[in-house]
């Protein structure tokens, strides 16, 4: 029980410092860790991710629910602190030291070099959610209703800017109507 909390804290602290380019970047690692090292099912992971999409604020607040599902209210608190605090401390330190690096040519090298890595990780995060939602979890066959929803959202957003929250709710409603 306590060991579970320690393990949760360590895993989410690790995810915290690996989140280069934002929360989406660590989704594959988070999915792997919570499903293989803890007994979260892929369906639970997907549902929790979806709940994060409809709440305001940072979508990654959904990690609280992972903690809650695995270890109750204490688990939610532990995961919340472990996932957000290390990054806050790092950022605080960097904010105070940044001016010192401002003139360093390496600062620009880091920024330019890590930008494509962060984009690659975003595609990996996208891939992780697509695999969880666009194929049936049970038999891995394509879920054409879900693929249709993803395709429509992609086309609409490439075409013009609409509040993604509305599209996401419409996607949920559409699946209730046509999914099986």
């Amino acid at each position, binding site marked *: 029980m306590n060991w579970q909390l320690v393990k949760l804290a360590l895993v989410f602290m690790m995810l915290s410092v690996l989140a280069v380019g934002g929360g*989406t970047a660590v989704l594959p690692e988070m999915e792997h860790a919570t499903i293989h090292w803890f007994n979260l099912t892929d369906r639970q992971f997907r549902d929790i991710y979806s709940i994060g999409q409809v709440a*305001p604020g940072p979508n990654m607040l959904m990690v*609280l629910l992972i903690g809650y599902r695995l270890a109750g209210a204490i688990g939610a608190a532990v995961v919340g602190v472990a996932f957000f605090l290390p990054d806050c401390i790092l950022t605080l330190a960097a904010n105070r030291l940044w001016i010192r690096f401002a003139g360093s040519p390496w600062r620009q090298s880091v920024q330019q070099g890590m930008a494509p890595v962060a984009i690659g990780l975003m595609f990996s995060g996208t891939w992780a959610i697509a695999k969880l939602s666009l194929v049936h979890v049970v038999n891995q066959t394509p879920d054409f209703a879900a693929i249709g929803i993803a395709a429509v959202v992609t086309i609409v957003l490439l075409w013009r800017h609409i509040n993604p929250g509305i599209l996401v709710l419409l996607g949920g409603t559409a699946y209730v109507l046509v999914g099986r």
Partner: protein
Amino acid sequence: MDSATPPSSTANNPAPATRVALSQIFKVFFMAGAVSFGGGVVAYLREYLVRGSGWLSDEDFMSALEISETLPGLNSVNIAVITGDDLRGVPGAAVAVGGLMLPGAVIVMALGLLWDQSRHNVTVSHFLLGIAAAAAGLLLVVSLQLGKQQLARMPDLAIVIATFVAVSILKLSLAIVLIVIGTVAIWLYRPHPARPPAPEHLPFHRGPRHNHYRR
């Protein structure tokens, strides 16, 4: 120009004469955290910090965003830490992060409890599946838009593909991917005496924000 006037302050963006109250910082970040439905919290923060409160100039905001993007963690949370710290030090950073996360945390937990009780409800599970499918499309578009520059030039495109393949196909551990590919990528962009830094990558310099209203 009066030497006491911060360089970035303009007629429509005056710097506050007194230091900002912690409760004020909390309120502004709480609002941004409460209304930023559908993600895109950074855009809401810009609205509240630059146009609403006038605490940051547009340039200050872009500078804070640039640091946030380089560091691990969520950009919105990192911006809250930087802005809160610049306004009121560590307590400022703490209330900014707390305010930003509180509304979403409460709502996520409330929805989670409802979900817990309706786990076997087919409509609920279909609704959440549809949300995940829509989110997959949304994430694809966001990745394409953020990666516009990187997807259009070498060696960036190669780094994007290598990272994706390493994580999603080869399923290597993220720490190893970051260390190996990150090191190679930074080395490819290592400082080069013969190649002056491209100006478009350093559009903002951290300047005025560090002189005015600092603690």
